[in-house]
């Protein structure tokens, strides 16, 4: 912005705070996912009965076959996987779910759980990019008290230094 323009202190703006609460249905497979997560610290995906592609997160439609997946098609996945891509989010933005600025910087990664055929994005507890490398092994870190909420129960994935 060129400096010499007289910056009007307050521009004449009309303010409107949107606050739309939503009651999103999550579907039967997600309900089962959170039950298993809360009760047994288990992570579940869903496997297509036709092409056997394992989807994570679990969902009701295999897009390749246009076939429905139900609770019976859910499979347990180990909480471990491989780091496929990573970044560190280092800029401010308003989080629409809260209306406030989401704390940053935070590690954010793409990984593939062992046994899954799809990839997933989630927090990772590393904000130094030099410490992250594609191919590293990662594992889910569970909160002590599980309440059936994704980011509360699994706040982040951790890079495994050595794998037993």
């Amino acid at each position: 912005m060129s400096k010499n323009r007289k910056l009007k202190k307050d521009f004449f703006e009309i303010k409107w705070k949107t606050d739309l609460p939503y009651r999103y249905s999550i579907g039967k497979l997600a309900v089962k996912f959170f039950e298993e997560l809360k009760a047994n610290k288990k992570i579940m995906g869903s496997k297509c009965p036709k092409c056997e592609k394992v989807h994570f997160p679990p969902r009701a439609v295999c897009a390749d076959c246009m076939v429905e997946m139900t609770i019976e098609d859910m499979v347990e996945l180990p909480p471990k996987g491989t780091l496929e891509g990573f970044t560190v989010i280092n800029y401010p933005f308003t989080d629409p779910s809260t209306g406030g600025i989401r704390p940053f910087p935070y590690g954010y990664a793409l990984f593939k759980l062992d046994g899954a055929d799809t990839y997933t994005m989630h927090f990772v507890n590393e904000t130094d990019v030099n410490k992250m490398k594609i191919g590293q092994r990662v594992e889910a870190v569970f909160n002590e008290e599980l309440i059936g909420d994704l980011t509360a129960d699994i706040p982040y994935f951790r890079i495994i230094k050595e794998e037993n």
Partner: protein
Amino acid sequence: MTKIGKVAIVGVAQTKYEKDKIDQTYSELVFEVVKKLHNDLGITNDDVGCVITSSNDFNDGRTIANMAIQDAVGSVRKAESRVSGDGAFAFMYGAMRILSESYDTVMVVSHCKCSEVNQYLVNNTIFDPYYQRHLGLDQISSAGLMANMYMNKYGVTEEQAAKVVVKNRKNALNNPYAHLREEITIKDVLNSKMMAYPLKELDFPPFSDGAVAMLLAKEDVAKKMTETPVWFKGYGNCTDAYYLGNRNMTDLIGLELAAKEAYRMAGINKPNKNLDVCEVSENFSVHELMIYEALGLCDKGEGGKFIESGETEMNGSIPVNPSGGVLSSNPTMANGLIRVAEIALQLQGKADKRQISNAKTGLAYGMNGICSQGNCVLIFGGE
């Protein structure tokens, strides 16, 4: 007949309309209706050229709401586009993709789950932030303004308005998909809680969850896929002024002009003679009376007398909303495409208990925005 090409509806599918489909995400709801359409027509995803969907980001609580239903409509590695508006407008875009000879078949899908967000808040966001939104306006208060001005100008009574609700709710008994399927009396309507004078609770539709899908095909493909193709005959689309203060609130000018254009294209000069059945998007009881006038089914101001004449009943000369209409099922964004689907069923002779005998020509009316600002009129023919 003008120079437009041939496109037909070969099959339609609907879900049951209900208050709260809590167990289904809206993409699972869409998948249910898409799978039903595939099975009914005996086709697979490969037989679908491209997909046109209709949804609303505010209602789905998601920007790019159609991103959530790509897997469900089968548009992975395929063409899909999304009309952010009522399903009838999406139908026309689908038809255009066939008339431009770009695709042999197009699937059109529309869904809405009113149960996931407060509908008054969603409707309030239609009003602009500069002059109208802070007033707290929504679809209920604007309906009250329109109804009161119309009834005052033409001396239409609350009993006449209540007759619309009684008719549509009675028709819904014969529609297995309908949300509200209990008959009500004029007294029930008149005694229901006042919402926006003079409109009461039963003058307004319920809020519903549901989805509708149909397959469109070009002429030769359509004739192979079904013995009863429903041919697209006419289309008119007209948008009235945005600010309520710029509008004629006692006559639906936008709908009038849209209907004139659709009639011109379909070669219709006497609507209530040439049309055999109408499915319209009546957003409140009085609205259907105003729609009769704008469609030219009766003269200006005669809507009240027209409902009393029984002409729009199932056995009348021009039945309106055999399906029970929006007053019986209201998954808002899908209303327009449901109207088209119901007309297709009528012309295919597949409307079972709500069938109008030998229906040859039908009209479907889809609406966008507040009090009929956006109007899409479609005419279909059986041969």
